[in-house]
């Protein structure tokens, strides 16, 4: 004997099909269960056509076809993601070319490998997330919020467990300098990344802003890691990883402001 739960599963897959002929076990369940019978009858009944939409549809079609021009569709997800990754690498390479890599010698090969692997995984995930976010209704294989939280956690984890702890807690001013430089690097990087994805149609602007902020902050963290001589867990966690949170917050704020801004309406 089937259960009501199994009827729910059937409705999940067949609700839109009016006049559906059910397999015998389902029919038997409906005969014996009034609750399911009422529900199934209501949900499988044909919804009457809406009479007044035809007129509106004609008006809409007339407006849309007036001066209609062809548009170039958005690139596929892998191509869009590849474009973001390329821009990310170009910005990073340009900044490293200008600022140098003086602090690389201060890192062990384990620290370097782990940090670069984490950054590479982060940028790939962020690039795919951005290319999904600019296409409405795209399937997100990972949610942006989880991605940003995971990235922050990975960076903090990397700094806390791979780098030595300081003997003293001085150099507060030095840390502030790192944070300011990092944010200053991240802002133009964020603008360039936004230019890369601006052709899409993002619907959740705060989320998109936070993701762009996260990607830009990752560039800043990379640059600082190769330039800042203080490779101590506390300094890195507080002043370098902190840039991620600041930039994500700034990006989300900018996105929120843009979302609240009244949009141009053609209607």
């Amino acid at each position, binding site marked *: 004997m*089937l*259960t*009501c739960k*199994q009827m*729910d*599963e059937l*409705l*999940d*897959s*067949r*609700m*839109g*099909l009016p006049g559906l*002929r059910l*397999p015998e*076990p389902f029919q038997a369940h409906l005969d014996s269960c*009034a*609750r*399911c019978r*009422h*529900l199934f009858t*209501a*949900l499988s*009944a044909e*919804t*009457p*056509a*809406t009479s*007044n*939409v*035809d007129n*509106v*549809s004609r*008006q*809409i*079609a007339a*407006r*849309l*076809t007036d001066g*209609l*021009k*062809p*548009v*170039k*569709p*958005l*690139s596929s997800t892998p191509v869009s993601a590849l474009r973001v990754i390329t821009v990310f690498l170009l910005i990073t390479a340009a900044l490293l070319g200008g600022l140098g890599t003086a602090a690389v010698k201060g890192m062990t090969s384990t620290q370097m490998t782990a940090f670069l692997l984490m950054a590479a995984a982060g940028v790939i995930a962020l690039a795919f997330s951005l290319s999904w976010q600019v*296409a*409405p*209704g*795209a*399937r*997100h294989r990972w*949610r942006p919020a989880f991605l940003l939280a995971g990235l922050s956690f990975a960076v903090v984890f990397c700094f806390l467990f791979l780098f030595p702890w300081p003997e003293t807690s001085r150099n507060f001013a030095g840390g502030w300098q790192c944070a300011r430089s990092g944010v200053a690097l991240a802002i133009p990087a964020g603008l360039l990344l936004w230019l890369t994805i601006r*052709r*899409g*149609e993002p*619907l959740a602007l705060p989320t998109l802003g936070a993701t762009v902020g996260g990607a830009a902050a990752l560039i800043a963290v990379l640059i600082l890691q190769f330039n800042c001589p203080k490779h101590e867990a506390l300094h890195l966690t507080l002043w370098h990883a902190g840039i991620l949170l600041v930039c994500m917050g700034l990006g989300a704020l900018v996105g929120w402001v843009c979302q609240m801004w*009244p949009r141009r309406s053609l*209607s």
Partner: protein
Amino acid sequence: MASKPAPDSPPAGGDTEQDDLSTLMARYQDADQQGVEELVNRLSPILYRFFISSTRDQTVSEDLLQECWMRIHRARHSFRRGEPLLPWVFAIARHTQLDNYRSRSRRRSREILVDSLPENQHYTMQPRLASRENFENLLAELPESQREVIVMMKVSGMTLEEVANATSSTVGAVKQKAHRAYEKLRRVLMERGTDHR
């Protein structure tokens, strides 16, 4: 526990239908006028049903439908060819409705400050609609988040995954909302004590 019998017909929101709509959208992107007209004719009724199920007001729903199409028009380049169209369309429709709620809330807060007249407010149930025992009235018993899931599945025949994409949610979350909605509808229908047709 009995095993679930295999389905003997294609799932709702069949692939052929989706392919047709995706092809029409591609023609829209190529500025084919006939393609646009056909797409508008096919999508407008389901979009209208989506809007009226939550606004329950014909005028507001028609305005939302027009606004939604203007947004679809502006965003038409962002449809990736070969992907299902309905999640793309409903994601835009959903945000059209959300923005409408936002602007309505802002407007209402200003109206309260100047003691505006209550009859200016939209979304009150019209008597003609209120007296009709129809699908919309049944859906009115559901919370907004459950209602939009049921409308997308029932009216447009979208699958759980497509609804999840359109609502920026997960399949599990959509399924949970749908099952809660079924339970609530069962209770309502039993209270009414009649088959809904």
